């Protein structure tokens, strides 16, 4: 393992120090591991908090800012944050109108956020949680912990953030977040596994002719190992899975996301194929993101996320946002 780090123990702390130095718009509490908006939230606005393991940057800290999150709680690499930390983030996000927790569906995240929500209620902060679970790779049945929350989380954070910025109350913000999640599906394929610094070797080993199909964002092995194929076939595979689950139609918001080590030139190529596939299925790419938005350390591969937009969601997507990683309209 060769990594640009001081030591596995300091990776998260070092990154938070760098985030603080790079973005004066953020208040980064390195010791308690809470990233929040410098100056705090606008009074009366519903607060938005998310968090999860580190290693997915820019998620979530890079999405703190106007029109998106008010605070984020980054855990250790690939490990959910702890309740006290989430509580602190919740307190910093609270501006008197309650706080929405956006939680990716993993047992650890769900449990730690649930405990934090209970602690927050003790402090008289009303908390509503929305759990994202957009990964079409996982069967949503009683035989699993349910679907994982993956790329759709970025869309939920942006759109719910716009609703909150626009003055919606906590239940309305939660409702729109839930709606985005329900209308969203993702699927990911990895070409090379990433390496958790503390583990020192890749999460799984792939031969030159293998890919991991339906991989998660934590270097978990996927549901199946497949054969390496030209990019257009991998894109079609991913979109077929999504389509089988939530038929592709209408105006779509599309993210073609890199897992961390796949260069932009390849992601744009993959997006060209995804667009062709989607249009070939009679739907429209109304809005898109191409780049590294929810990563898995130095894993290579892509994920594709589709959301069925409606007029309200489109308007909220287009609303101004100003965060380190997503910025337009101001």
């Amino acid at each position, binding site marked *: 393992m060769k990594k640009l780090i001081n030591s596995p123990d300091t990776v998260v702390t070092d990154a938070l120090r760098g985030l603080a130095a790079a973005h004066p718009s953020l208040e980064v509490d390195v010791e308690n591991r809470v990233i929040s908006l410098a100056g705090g939230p606008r009074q009366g606005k519903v607060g938005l908090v998310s968090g999860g*393991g580190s290693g997915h940057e820019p998620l979530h800290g890079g999405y703190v800012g106007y029109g998106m999150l008010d605070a984020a709680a980054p*855990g*250790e*690499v*690939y*490990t*959910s*944050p*702890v*309740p*006290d930390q989430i509580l602190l983030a919740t307190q910093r996000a609270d501006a008197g109108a309650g706080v929405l927790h956006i939680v990716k569906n*993993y*047992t*650890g995240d769900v*449990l*730690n956020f*649930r*405990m934090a929500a209970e602690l927050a209620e003790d402090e008289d902060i009303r908390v509503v949680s929305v759990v994202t679970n957009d990964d079409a*790779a*996982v*069967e949503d049945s*009683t*035989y*699993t*912990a349910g679907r*994982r929350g993956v790329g759709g989380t970025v869309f939920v954070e942006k759109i719910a953030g716009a609703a909150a910025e626009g003055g919606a109350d906590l239940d309305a913000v939660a409702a729109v977040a839930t709606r985005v999640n329900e209308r969203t599906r993702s699927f990911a394929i990895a070409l090379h596994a990433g390496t*958790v610094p*503390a*583990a020192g070797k890749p*999460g799984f080993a792939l031969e030159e002719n293998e890919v991991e199909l339906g991989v*998660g964002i*934590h*270097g*978990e*092995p996927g*549901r*199946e190992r497949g054969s390496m194929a030209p990019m257009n076939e991998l894109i079609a595979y991913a979109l077929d899975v999504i389509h089988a689950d939530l038929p592709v139609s209408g105006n779509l918001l599309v993210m073609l996301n890199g897992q961390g080590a796949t260069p932009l030139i390849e992601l744009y190529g993959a997006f060209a194929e995804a667009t062709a596939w989607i249009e070939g299925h009679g739907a429209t790419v109304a809005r898109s993101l191409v780049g590294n938005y929810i990563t898995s350390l130095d894993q290579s591969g892509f994920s594709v996320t589709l959301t069925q937009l409606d007029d309200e969601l489109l308007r909220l997507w287009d609303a101004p946002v100003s965060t380190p990683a997503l910025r337009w309209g101001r």
Partner: protein
Amino acid sequence: MGFDTETAVAWIDTAATVVKADEARLTALDAAIGDGDHGANLVRGLTAAVAGIAEKEPSTPGEVLVVAGRGIVAKTGGASGPLYGSALRRAGKALGDTTDADAVQLGAALEAMLTAIVELGSAAEGDKTMVDALGPAVRAFNDLAADGASLPAAALAAADAAEAGLAATIPLQARKGRASYLGPRSVGHEDPGAASTALLLRALAEVTA
């Protein structure tokens, strides 16, 4: 002598030591069917538990477990942090004010641990989680305790049962936690949480022996 303050502290200390010694193994188990952090998580959590005890100097075995549980919740993260942390807190509360719990009292505390985990995580035995080790262990402990066995004997049976439960997770397909995402590919591996539970119960048997 039963489960007194000193024994409770020794349990947590020993647990921290053995988990630290086996960190790499727990991590490897988690890398195979999860995300490879279970070893680091528990080391962090148990280190916090030990530090919390040193700082708070709890004066009853119940308090020891409550303080340990708080430390684990506060520092572990992941699925295992809230599960183990709440479990120990609940076990500590079940012990009440007693300064020296007997086998029956400790059995009830272990039962409370199990209940806490099942309530939070809603896993049943057979789902390939820590419950597969803890469930049989608690039953073995309480069966013996109900028959009037000594606390050391009950703890030894519990440790053995936990290890058997761990072994029994190998052929199972996971239905809870991160390993469930693998579907059939989760078969053929020990569950990391069951492995750490087996370590905790072996530590209990050691410190009560």
